[in-house]
């Protein structure tokens, strides 16, 4: 009996460790979100109501961004996979009778959804209930838009992950994956609307951006939720999301086919 109690204590202590990590992450995100809300408040006041998005949409955008951070960020790609590519662990992966692309794709999607689910519940809970009234997140504008939000979240996640897959695949062609990753993800972070929401981009740049896959990542679901994106545009965006998902996936698979032939094990 004693050893079981020991095991219980051990697991409990480990669990508590993670709980502490969750609490600190939550606090960090809440402060981060609140600071952004305050900054946009000042910007809203300065613009005298002539902003490209109305203030409550921005607040909702910010909280969704914080809540679903792990779903859509490109910089927090799976470090294990990078390690595998550089230290030779990939050899074990190659032994499995599975396609590496599908395996890594599902692995990344699974990890992201699981983590996002754990993170978003407390963040969104606080954003709905505990924040000062002016900085509170609002409910979706309608039931339909909520359903469309859910659909586009998954499509956007698909696009983000297929993009990450391309980054992983590129790492097969270099021995310094961290550098490539930083260059690519730094830019994408900005282009997908993580620094400022895309409606704040000047029209001519926005036009160019809408020709790229980056405008169809987090930008689409977050704006559908708050009603900033409505009507026919929504369906057009969904079609473009499906298009980019397919293109990026094919590109990733093609890259993998190429990488597979020349994979070199760096020791390990």
């Amino acid at each position: 009996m004693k050893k079981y109690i020991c095991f219980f204590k051990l697991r409990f202590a480990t669990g508590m460790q993670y709980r502490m990590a969750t609490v600190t992450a939550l606090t960090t995100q809440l402060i981060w979100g609140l600071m952004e809300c305050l900054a946009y408040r000042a910007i809203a006041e300065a613009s005298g109501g002539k902003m490209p998005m109305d203030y409550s949409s921005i607040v909702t955008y910010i909280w969704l961004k914080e809540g679903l951070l792990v779903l859509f960020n490109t910089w927090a790609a799976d470090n294990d996979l990078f390690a595998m590519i550089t230290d030779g662990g990939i050899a074990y992966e190659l032994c499995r009778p599975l396609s590496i692309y599908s395996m890594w794709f599902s692995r990344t999607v699974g990890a992201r959804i699981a983590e996002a689910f754990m993170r978003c519940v407390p963040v969104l809970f606080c954003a709905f209930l505990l924040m000062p009234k002016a900085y509170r997140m609002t409910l979706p504008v309608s039931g339909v838009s909520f359903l469309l939000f859910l659909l586009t979240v998954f499509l956007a996640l698909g696009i983000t992950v297929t993009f990450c897959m391309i980054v992983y695949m590129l790492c097969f062609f270099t021995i310094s994956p961290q550098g490539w990753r930083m260059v690519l993800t730094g830019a994408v972070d900005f282009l997908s609307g993580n620094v400022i929401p895309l409606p704040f981009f000047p029209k001519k740049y926005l036009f160019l951006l809408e020709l790229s896959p980056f405008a169809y990542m987090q930008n689409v679901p977050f704006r559908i939720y708050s009603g900033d994106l409505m009507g026919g545009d929504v369906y057009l965006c969904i079609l473009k999301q499906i298009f980019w998902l397919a293109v990026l996936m094919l590109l990733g698979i093609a890259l993998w086919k190429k990488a597979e032939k020349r994979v070199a094990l760096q020791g390990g």
Partner: protein
Amino acid sequence: MKIRKNLKLYMKYASVCTKSIMQYKLSFLLMIIGRFIIAFCELIGIRFLFSDLTQIKGYTYGEVLLCFSVIQMSFTFAELFGNGFKVFSGIVRKGEFDRMMLRPCSLILQVMGSRFEVGRTGPLLTAVITLVLGIRHSQITWSAAKVWTMAAMITGGTLLFIGLFILEASMCFFSIEDTSLMNVLTYGAKTHGKYPIDIYGKGILRFCTYIIPYTLIQYYPLQFLLGKKGSIYLAFSPFGIAVFLLICSCLWQYGVKNYKSCGS
């Protein structure tokens, strides 16, 4: 004499670290470019936000750029020199700190020296570009006092962030828990400090004065720099950071005294 010896040792550390990074030139170059891009995107972000605005709470585009530049520069220098404190939990975990304690030389020097990383300097380029843009867009009549204020803000800012890194490192002595909450105070300040602190309202301004003295290197000297408040005393407020640094290093010393190896 001792200072000179220490300085020489630090240079030695820095050159060894740099040499080891230079073994992977492409990686180093990409790291610099990557960090530069991340910071540069933030600059473009400010530019885009200001495309329809003339001011935020009385601060013009050029004035916000100056503020952004000061914070970026401070943070980059702090990361360059104080990186050892930032990754201190790793140093402890690997048992490296135990080894450091055996050597007859200053611990702070070893911690700071052993993790000197030139690759961190990428955002510096952005900060310089921002500074040039900021000077061009803002109507400041530059005088010796104003140049001094600017330099004091950057130096003070660097020391403030180093102080925060020391604080983060000291926490490793007292708790094995995640110290990521400190990220709010370091990265958070870097990200949100690009706007003068008073745009966030009175509460935040108070926190940033009495709890962590960000305002000493940002808000108050900025008032003098931009000519919003005339008092020249404000130009000397970055000196206050010395007190903050002293408190942080006392905590560090106290931590070192109570250090128990984690045994790996």
